[in-house]
């Protein structure tokens, strides 16, 4: 039993579709190799080629393995493993000449689709799921027809039911009919509250969120990334735009180039705020970031489930966020986080690398002389930023060893990281304890659905200084330079530097699309063990013993199958659509009926024509037509042209009644 050409094309097509997002994410040369293997197999069907022998097959398989290990260095980890799966299926595909192989390739396609969701569960991927599953099912249907179908019939009566179009339609139908069942199972199937094993890290292809260190220049790649970082819905009004600082990692150590976290930050906070008037309560839906950082407004009252609150009021999750994560936070902005700064911490907050930034140090001393008060000094620096020729731009130069000097006195063009870094160096040089906070700022308010969308491009860095009697206080030097960056977001600060592709209309469209994505996230992706419990509770089913729940699941799934079976009855019923020939004859019968002649039960076309002819002037023509119809329908096949000619003749024929009165009497 061999595979038909249509089958091979369907399997290859279904595989390529299922592999599409994987191909897009792997290195192009590897993707090209996989596509070539698939195309090669398809080419066998069109031109005469020798079949690959075991040597070539082995070369393909081990070559693929070698390519993957060369690029990823491992088979462990989600991306490497799925790329490997793609390579292996492609290798199998290139030697797919038996039904068995085709079946295995097709079935693995389902798996390939499911693995894609380890990387992203975006709304668009639902379309990928639907179309992919339907195509694979269609391929399986076609393979089965090859296996057990009737042997090749003569070309005149080629079975339409085995054509690619009809098989794909059947695939979609089967999947559509299975959808209600899947929905019931999806809602009621018990979920795991905690995972059995952890997700291998090093995934997401380096497309990670905010990192836990900063050297001026590395948030920049986030600015180009318009993908959502997280979404926030508030219980009540959202904070004003200028207060939307989403706190992430807090950085203390500076080696002249890179800011890093301090080990001591991992302590628990000495005191935590009390939720009171002015507090914000909100739910964050965080997209996978591969990092452990969660984000909150200043100052989170307590850590959400599964996370920890640090002394710097960072929220650290127990495990990296690899799937959509939802958490509730209460933030109290009106809070003094530390009354006094311990000596060790003060040392860290004033630490600067030796022999660096001499000009900044000198300038700091000069300022200190002029402004003995810390607050006055800070205000002076901010107004200096504001009034001198400082510009906010992503288009800037990297900094050297004396980064703060170069930036403050020569370059004066940069973005938040540059300003925050230089500002903190200046503060420390002036003897004011200071540190850097990274996170996100702003966000887009979806007024219709009442949630705040924070994109990766909203990444931001600002400073905190320790003031006597006030504690750690937020100072955003970027706001002094480019107030619009804070008021209206990163986009407005960079206006004019983009092409039409990222134009305003597209931005609006993306915002609209994100509304759907938000609903999707909330209702489909966010449906976890807790949600399920709540849902069951709202139906009053949560108190049932597990056995009863299982029985209920079975019964409900069964109930879904009943209408399904009925639907199936209707769809697989042998009531085929009349073909061209029958349609022509039915048209003729319709005309007769309108003329008052009704066909009787069991009457053959010729009998009907004879009976009708008695009352018609052109009855003999009708009899001829009926005879021709019978010949075409039951006789040997005489070609499509004969049917066309018959159709043309019938469409011209109209009954001419001999004596209308006699008809009325009958």
């Amino acid at each position, binding site marked *: 039993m061999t595979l038909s050409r249509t089958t091979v094309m369907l399997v290859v097509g279904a595989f390529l579709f299922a592999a599409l997002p994987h191909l897009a994410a792997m290195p192009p040369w590897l993707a090209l190799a996989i596509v070539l293997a698939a195309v090669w197999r398809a080419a066998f069907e069109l031109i005469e080629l020798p079949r690959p022998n075991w040597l070539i097959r082995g070369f393909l398989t081990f070559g693929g393995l070698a390519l993957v290990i060369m690029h990823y260095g491992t088979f462990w980890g989600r991306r490497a493993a799925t790329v490997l799966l793609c390579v292996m299926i492609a290798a199998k595909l290139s030697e797919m000449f038996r039904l068995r192989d085709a079946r295995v390739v097709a079935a693995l396609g389902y798996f390939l689709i499911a693995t894609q969701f380890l990387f992203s569960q975006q709304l668009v991927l639902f379309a990928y799921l639907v179309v992919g599953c339907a195509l694979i099912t269609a391929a399986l249907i076609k393979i089965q027809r090859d296996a057990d179908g009737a042997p090749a019939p003569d070309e005149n009566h080629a079975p339409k039911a085995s054509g690619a179009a009809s098989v794909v339609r059947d695939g979609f139908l089967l999947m559509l009919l299975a959808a209600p069942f899947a929905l019931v199972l*999806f809602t009621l199937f018990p979920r795991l509250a905690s995972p059995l094993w952890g997700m291998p890290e090093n995934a997401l292809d380096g497309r990670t969120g905010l990192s836990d260190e900063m050297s001026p220049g590395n948030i920049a790649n986030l600015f180009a990334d318009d993908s959502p970082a997280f979404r926030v819905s508030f219980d009540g009004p959202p904070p004003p735009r200028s207060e939307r600082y989403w706190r992430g990692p807090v950085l203390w150590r500076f080696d002249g180039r890179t800011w890093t976290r301090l080990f001591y930050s991992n302590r628990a906070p000495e005191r935590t705020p009390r939720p009171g008037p002015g507090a914000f309560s909100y739910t964050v839906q965080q997209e996978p970031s591969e990092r452990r950082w969660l984000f909150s407004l200043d100052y989170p009252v307590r850590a959400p489930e599964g996370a920890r609150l640090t002394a710097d009021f960072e929220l650290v999750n127990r495990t990296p966020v690899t799937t959509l994560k939802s958490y509730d936070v209460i933030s109290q902005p009106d809070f003094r986080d530390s009354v006094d700064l311990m000596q060790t911490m003060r040392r860290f907050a004033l630490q600067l690398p030796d022999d660096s930034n001499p000009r900044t140090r000198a300038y700091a001393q000069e300022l200190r002389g002029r402004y003995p008060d810390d607050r006055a000094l800070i205000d002076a620096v901010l107004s200096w930023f504001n009034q001198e020729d400082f510009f906010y731009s992503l288009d800037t130069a990297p900094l050297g060893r004396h980064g703060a000097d170069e930036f403050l006195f020569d370059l004066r063009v940069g973005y938040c990281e540059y300003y925050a870094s230089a500002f903190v160096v200046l503060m420390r040089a002036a003897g004011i304890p200071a540190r850097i906070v990274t996170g996100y700022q702003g966000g887009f308010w979806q007024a219709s659905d009442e949630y705040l969308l924070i994109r990766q491009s909203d990444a931001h860095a600002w400073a905190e200084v320790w003031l006597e009697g006030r504690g750690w206080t937020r100072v955003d030097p970027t706001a002094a330079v480019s107030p619009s960056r804070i008021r209206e977001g990163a986009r407005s600060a960079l206006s004019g530097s983009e092409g039409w592709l990222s134009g305003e209309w597209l931005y609006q469209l993306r915002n609209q699309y994100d509304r759907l994505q938000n609903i999707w996230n909330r209702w489909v992706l966010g449906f976890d063990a807790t949600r399920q419990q709540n849902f069951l509770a709202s139906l009053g089913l949560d108190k049932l013993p597990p056995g009863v729940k299982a029985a209920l699941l079975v019964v409900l799934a069964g109930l879904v199958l009943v209408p399904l079976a009925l639907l199936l009855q209707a769809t697989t019923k042998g009531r085929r659509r009349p073909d061209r020939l029958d349609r022509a004859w039915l048209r003729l019968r319709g005309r007769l009926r309108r003329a008052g002649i009704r066909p009787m039960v069991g009457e053959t076309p010729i009998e009907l024509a004879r009976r009708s002819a008695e009352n018609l002037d052109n009855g003999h023509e009708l009899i001829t037509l009926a005879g021709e119809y019978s010949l075409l329908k039951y006789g040997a096949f005489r070609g499509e042209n004969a049917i066309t000619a018959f159709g043309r003749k019938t469409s011209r024929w109209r009954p001419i009644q001999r004596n209308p009165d006699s008809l009325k009497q009958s």
Partner: protein
Amino acid sequence: MSSSRFSTKPAFPEGSWARSWLDAAQSRFGAWLRRRGPVHPPLTLGYRQIYILPTRFGWLVGLLLFAMLLGSLNFNNNLGLFTTFLVAGIGLLSMHIAHRNLDGVRVAGCVPGQAFAGDSLALSITLQDTKDRTRRGLVAESKGLPATAGVDLAAAASAETALSIPTHRRGWMEIPRIRLRTRHPIGWFVAWSWFWPEHKVLVWPRPADHAPPLLTSGSSDSRNRPGDESDEFHGLRDWREGDPLHRIAWKASQRHQHLLARQFTRPERDRIILRLADAPGRSVEERLSILARWVMQAERNEFEYGMDLGATTVETGAGRAHQIRCLNALGEFG
């Protein structure tokens, strides 16, 4: 797919306890099947006759689905979970469709053909749809035999397929239990029904490859003697008093201006009696084989032949029907 090679070697040797136990189990199973409902064609397959199980490929997909379920549950991956359930739903549906594909199929007939020992016997199976549904990929197979090609049935239509059964020795042969199965639509489940053809088949002895030439019994006067209308048309002759009126060739008579009558003749054939005693050979089977060859030769040479097998005799005659009569007698001998 199931092109399992035909083999005559049983799994257990004849007479061993395992074999007898297996035989007993099989006959009990057969009896149980028979108790469940009609098992001889013509029969319409209903839910009592239809069995369904996953195929090997179906188990494989099940394993795949289990892996997908575990992974998706572990990572709380809702789209992965939905994919898993969707594919599971497709599988469940395919089980239902496989059952429906067989439900209401009528095995209208199961007619064995004829065969010489060692040849394959074509068992022609007629399938009918009784529920106005389109049926796809119905395959008939029997243990150890290559399956038939699939049969598609249009709604309310019938179709025929032939199962080829190898034969080994002359005589009456039991036709094994036949399985009508379908793996429609995606091959994850196989639904099947068993039935037994009611009749045994008579297998003819294989005509010997080397047989002594046929001895004609001398009476070789090949003259033709007049016959009646059932015989061959010979020609026209003048009509004579006493000829029946319907023998007059009216059209020809008109052309010749006098009455002509049609004349018929019966060709005289060689008569021969094939005797078992005349056939050389060490065993009865060998001699029957030679007789079979003689029957074939006699028929080809248009002899008039009869048979004397000692216990049974066949009157002389000729023609296809007579040949079958003779071969049947050979097949049944003993």
